[in-house]
């Protein structure tokens, strides 16, 4: 088995997939804690549907670089969803559900009416569940992904304390002079970038798993924001790595394998947390 793995690692496309997969997993786990705690677990889901809709439009328009359309649209929707914050008229979950189904429906509709492809359902399926596109990345795409990931991680570290303050208590942060709206905006933009990146890896339907599972697993085990964040990042990278390796060896779909590993790790963390907590109590 190791031989087989070694053989696969000879191929550049396998190495690219591993690099990109691990980076995406790292980025998506960072904001997971914030999103879970702000009750925005489904934002990944909603935004990825937006990205799906945008992708459909881009495909119909025959754009060579669909990122140019998908990224701005997703960012705008993320801002609209998160900007309203704690005091929205249509509460977070309802707004997300609304945007998510509408864009999904329109995306499919547009693809259906205008599609030039002969394999429509195949196209839709691969956009939704992650395709083999992670295994067909070009060198340029890998570099774009590395650059964006470095930017996301750097921004997260620089604004870590502000993000904590705004997540923990938005009103207090505002009252003590922190521009909470600006940081909510920042979180919205970062999450949109991550979603668009992650669509390559797991497809639009499974992105939420990458965002929330590591955070939820880490929250079973740790009790401070910093250790939860670090643990989430480590778990996420580990799961993505393992998932990609398994999918290569066993020939399973990449996205769903990663999510399955994430789910199993969550189960282990849950049990571990119970035992650990039991000892403490």
């Amino acid at each position, binding site marked *: 088995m190791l031989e087989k793995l070694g053989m696969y690692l000879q191929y550049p496309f396998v190495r690219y997939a591993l690099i990109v997969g691990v980076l995406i997993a790292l980025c998506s786990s960072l904001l997971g*804690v914030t999103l879970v*705690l*702000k*009750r925005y677990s489904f934002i990944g889901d909603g935004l990825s549907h937006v990205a799906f809709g945008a992708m459909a439009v881009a495909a119909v328009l025959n754009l060579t670089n669909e990122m140019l359309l998908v990224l701005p649209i997703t960012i705008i929707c993320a801002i609209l969803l998160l900007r309203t914050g*704690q005091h929205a008229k249509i509460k977070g979950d309802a707004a997300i559900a609304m945007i998510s189904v509408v864009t999904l429906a329109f995306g499919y509709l547009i693809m259906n009416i205008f599609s030039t492809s002969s394999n429509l359902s195949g196209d839709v399926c691969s956009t939704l569940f992650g395709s083999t596109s992670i295994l067909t990345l070009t060198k340029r795409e890998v570099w774009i992904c590395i650059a964006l990931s470095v930017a996301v991680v750097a921004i997260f*570290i*620089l*604004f*870590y*304390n*502000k993000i*904590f*303050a705004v*997540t*923990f*208590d938005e*009103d*207090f*942060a*505002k*009252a*003590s*002079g*922190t521009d909470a709206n600006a940081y909510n905006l920042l979180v919205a933009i970062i999450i949109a970038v991550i979603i668009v990146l992650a669509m390559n890896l797991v497809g639009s339907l499974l992105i939420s798993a990458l965002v929330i599972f590591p955070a939820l697993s880490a*929250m079973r085990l*740790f*009790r*401070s*924001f*910093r250790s*939860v964040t670090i643990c989430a990042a480590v778990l996420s990278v580990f799961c993505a790595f393992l998932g990609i390796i398994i999918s290569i060896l066993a020939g399973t779909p990449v996205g769903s394998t990663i999510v399955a590993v994430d789910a199993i790790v969550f189960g282990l963390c849950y049990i571990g947390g119970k035992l650990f907590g039991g000892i403490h109590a």
Partner: protein
Amino acid sequence: MAILTVQDLTLGYESYVVAKDLSFTVNSGDYLCIVGENGSGKTTLMKTLLRLKSPMSGTIRTGDGLEKDQIGYLPQQTAVQKDFPASVREVVLSGCQGRCGRRPFYNRSEKQLAEKSMERMGVAALARRCFRELSGGQQQRVLLARALCAARKVLLLDEPVSGLDPKATSEMYDLIEGLNRDGITIIMISHDIAAAVRYATHILHMGERVFFGTKEEYLKAEAGSRFLQQKGGERDA
């Protein structure tokens, strides 16, 4: 000179007026209690004082060198905090955020300030504990320590003792009184009129009739005695 002067303030949400014609002043070292029935606009007033909401009309002036970000605030707890994984130190340190400005990380003096605030509130021993696993009284003391990190002169407290048992309640009042004696101006929303009368120097009563004055004036005034009687009646029943 007054650090806070409020004139003809009208509060509300969109077109619905919650409270109107509020005028009062707060001097340095005062202990002001804001009392009144549910829905009389106490929390709205506090949010307006903190500039989280804008008033429908009227003015709020700060004086005596008080800046916007020098007000410490103890809000009512939010649902998010009930399962937030954060250590006590992380929570208290986040009170220094206003001092940080655009600087990304806390510096040494801010960390020391956080340690000092924790010691003052008697939660230093809990520094590494998880915030959500503490008792209600401990949580309030942690949030008070956080507010102290932000406050240089004024603390705004929104029902600091709600949900606490009698022992934790009296401990909380003692801590607040101690802070006031150290020269920090206290503005507190309270349901507990007996405690308000006991600790405060000034009282603002909100509701159909608005009263503002010193504690002694309040006790003589009709609004206060009526409210006291009502409270007493409820307790007897």
